[in-house]
C-alpha cells in the first residue's frame, strides 16, 4: 500500500516529458562545459597558484619592513613579516642609491642591446634568406648558440674574456692591439657584457626569417618591374611587411633586457655586480636583497617597481603601434 502511494506521488511530482528533456539537455550541457573546464583547469590552476597568487602575496609582503624569517607559525600565516607600512617604497625612492645605479646599468644595456640586436638579427636573417646552396647549414650555425645552456656559454665567455689568460687578449696581442681588462674593469665590463649578449641573436633571427618567408613574392616582383632597387624594396616592402615580428621582438627584447639576471650570475658568479657595480643589473639587485640581505619585503617592493616600469613601457609601445602592419584593412 505504502509503495503504491509512493509511486503515485512520484508520478505526480515528475516533470512532463518536455521539461524532462530540457533538464537532460541542461545536464548534458553542464557536463559538456565541465568537461572543457576540466581540460583547461590544470593550466588555470597553475597560473592562479604559481603566478597570480605569488604576485598578489608579494605585493602584500612589499609593505612589510622587517623579515625575521621565523618559521614556528601556523601554515598560510605571513611567516616572519613585521612592521606594515610604506617604508620599503620610501627606501627605494629616497634612501637606496644602489637602486638608481641598477636602473642606470639596466636601461643602458636595454637601450644599446635591444636595437642593436634587432638590427643585427634582421641583417643576418636577410643574408640567410638568400637562395644559396647549403644555406641550411648556415642557419643551423647561427641558431646553435641559442640552444647552448646559459651556464655553459657563461663559463665559455668567462674563459674567453679572462683578462690574464683568455683567448680574447691573445687575439688582440697577436694583432698588436692593446690588451683589455674586459670584465675586470668598470669601464669595459658593461660593453664586454653587451657584446657577449649578441651571441644569442639567433633567437630573434629565426623569427625574422619566418617573417621574411611570408613576404609575398608578387609584391617584390611588382616593385622590381616598377624599377625599385634593392634598398627601396627593403625599406618600402620587406620592412613594413615584417613589422609584426619587429613589434614582437621589440616587446620581448625590452622585457628580457629589463629582467636580465641569469647571464650575469653565470658569468660573474657570486661577484655578480662586477667591478664597481658596473654590472649591477636591477634583477640582480632584487636577488641580492632577497637572498644575501634576507630583506624579503624590500625585495618584493623592488620587484613591483620593476613590474610597473615594464608594464608602463609595454603599454606605451602598444599605444604607439600604428606603424605595425597587420594586413589589409588594418
Amino acid at each position, binding site marked *: 500500500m505504502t509503495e503504491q502511494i509512493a509511486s503515485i506521488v512520484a508520478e505526480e511530482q515528475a516533470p512532463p516529458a518536455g521539461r524532462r528533456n530540457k533538464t537532460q539537455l541542461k545536464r548534458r550541457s553542464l557536463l559538456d562545459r565541465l568537461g572543457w573546464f576540466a581540460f583547461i583547469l590544470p593550466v588555470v590552476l597553475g597560473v592562479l597558484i604559481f603566478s597570480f597568487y605569488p604576485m598578489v602575496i608579494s605585493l602584500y609582503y612589499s609593505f612589510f619592513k*622587517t623579515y625575521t624569517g621565523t*618559521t614556528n607559525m601556523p601554515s598560510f600565516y605571513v611567516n616572519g613579516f613585521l612592521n606594515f607600512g610604506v617604508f620599503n617604497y620610501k627606501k627605494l625612492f629616497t634612501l637606496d642609491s644602489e637602486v638608481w645605479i641598477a636602473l642606470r646599468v639596466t636601461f643602458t644595456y636595454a637601450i644599446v642591446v635591444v636595437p642593436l640586436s634587432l638590427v643585427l638579427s634582421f641583417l643576418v636573417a636577410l643574408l640567410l634568406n638568400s637562395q644559396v646552396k647549403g644555406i641550411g647549414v648556415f642557419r643551423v650555425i647561427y641558431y646553435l648558440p641559442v640552444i647552448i645552456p646559459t651556464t655553459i656559454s657563461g663559463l665559455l665567455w668567462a674563459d674567453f674574456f679572462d683578462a690574464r689568460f683568455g683567448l680574447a687578449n691573445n687575439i688582440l696581442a697577436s694583432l698588436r692591439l692593446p690588451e683589455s681588462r674586459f670584465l675586470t674593469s668598470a669601464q669595459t665590463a658593461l660593453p664586454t657584457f653587451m657584446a657577449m649578449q649578441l651571441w644569442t641573436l639567433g633567437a630573434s633571427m629565426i623569427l625574422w626569417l619566418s617573417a621574411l618567408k611570408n613576404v609575398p613574392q608578387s609584391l617584390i616582383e611588382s616593385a622590381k618591374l616598377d624599377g625599385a632597387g634593392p634598398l627601396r624594396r627593403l625599406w618600402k616592402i620587406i620592412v613594413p611587411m615584417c613589422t609584426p615580428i619587429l613589434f614582437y621582438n621589440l616587446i620581448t627584447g625590452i622585457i628580457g633586457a629589463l629582467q636580465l639576471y641569469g647571464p650575469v650570475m653565470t658569468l660573474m658568479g657570486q661577484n655578480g655586480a662586477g667591478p664597481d657595480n658596473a654590472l649591477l643589473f636591477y634583477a640582480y639587485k632584487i636577488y641580492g636583497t632577497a637572498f644575501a640581505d634576507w630583506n624579503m619585503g624590500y625585495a618584493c617592493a623592488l620587484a613591483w617597481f620593476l613590474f610597473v616600469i615594464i608594464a608602463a613601457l609595454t603599454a606605451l609601445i602598444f599605444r604607439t603601434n600604428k606603424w605595425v602592419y597587420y594586413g589589409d584593412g588594418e
Partner: protein
Amino acid sequence: MRKLLQKLAIILLAVSCVMGASACDGFGGGGNGGGYQPVDVALDPNTEAHLIAVVDVDSFEKKLLEDAAKGFQTHFPNVSIEVIQNGDVISYIRSGDQVDIMSVIGENVSFFASQGVLTELDPYLEAQEFDTSKYFPSMMDLGKDTVSKKQYMMPRDYSRIVLFYNKDLFDRLNVSYPVDTEESPWTWEAFLAKCEEIKTAMAAGGADYKNYVPVEGSMSYDILNWGIVSSYGVDCLLKDDFTLVDKGSPTYANWQKGMTAARDLIKSGYSLDSDNYSPSHFQTGVAAMAFGVAPAMQGFNLGQINYDVISFPAIGNTPKAPSGTSGYAIANGSGNKNIAWAFLNYLMSEEGQTVLTTGTGLVPVLTALAEDKNAAWRGMKNGKGNDINIDALLSYSERDVIADWFGNLPALARSPYKGFYNNFLKLVCDGKKSFEQGYTLLAQNIDQIKRDYPEYFV
C-alpha cells in the same frame, strides 16, 4: 571518443583535487613536526628510524655523509639515513619537508639558530657527558650561537688557512722552499721576502711567466683578512652599541695596520685584486703559493700540482691563523632528535672521525686523532703522489681565530653588516678607497641600518 576524453578529464580533475588536498595537509609538517622530545642518550641499538640529512649541493659532501652513515649503521642497524643535496636548507624546511640532520657552515650557525631551524645541543651534551675539551676549541666555538653562546652545531673537521706552495714552480724559478724553524721562523716578513723573490724570478723569466702571480689569496675574503687584522690585536670591530670602533682609538689604529698589510700585498704585485683574483690559479700552476684550507688539496691534486704546505705566516707578537669549518646540526622540526643526536655523537667519536677524514683530505677535529702520527687520515699525498708536511695543518692551533669580528651582533643585523663589511674590504684592499674613506663609508652604512632597522638589534 570526445565523451570518453571528457570523462577522463573529469576523473583526472577529481583525483588532482583529492591529491592536492592531501598534499596541503602536509604543510608545515617538516618545520613544526618535531614537538617536545625528552632527551635520551641511551637508545636501544635496535631502534628503528629513517633519518633525512640535508647537505649542500656537493657530491663530496653527500658521499662523506653516506660513508659515515654506513659506519653508524653498524651500531644502529635499523636506522637508515637518506642524504639529500639542497643549497637552501631553510627554504627546504619551510616547504614542509622532513629534515633531521643538516650540514651548516660555522658562519651560518647564529643566523640559522635565529631562524628557529636548529635544535640546541647543550642538553644532549650534558646528558651524554660529552667532553668538549677533546676537540679543537676554535672549532667547537664555531658551533655556538654568537649571542646566546649555546651549542647548535658539531664541527665536522679541523680546518684553518695555511699556505700551499708549488715545489715544481719554485724549482723552475730557482727559489728555495719556505721554511719554519727556530732559526728562521715563518713570519709575515719572511713571507713578503719570499713573495719578492718569486716576483723577481718571474720577471726575469720574461714572457714565460707573464701572467703568473706569486700568491693566490683573496685579501678581501673576510676570514683570511681577519687572520691578518686580528694578528694586529683587533678583537672586534664593533662597540657595545654595535657601531664601529671610534676613529683614533687603539683598535682603529691596529685595524688600519692590518688592512694596510693586506692591501700592500696586492699593491706590491704579490697578489691580485678582487676583480682579477681567481681561485684556480694555484690549481692550474700559475700561482707559486696559495692561501687555502686542507679540503682545497683535492683540487690541487686534480691539477697534479707537486705542492707542500706551511703554516699561516706569523704576524707580530700575537699571531693568528684564520679558521673555520662546517658541521652537522639537528633540525628543530625533526621527529627523531634522539637518534639524530646518536648519529652526531658517532660522527664526533674516534671511529666517526676516522671515517670522515680517511682519504678525504679532511683533518680530524678530535685532537688525539689529529695528533696521532699513525692515524689513517695522515696518508695524504700531493698531486704527484709525494708526501706533504701534514703537521703544518695542525701546528700553532693556539693561534686559531674564527669569524668573530662582529662580536655578539644579533643575527638579523648580521646579513646587512656582512654586506657592508665585504664591500669595505674590497674597496680598501683593491686600493679603490683609503682606509679612512672606507671606514667612513662603513660607519655611515652601519649608522643608517641602526637608524632604519632598530628592530634588528632587539
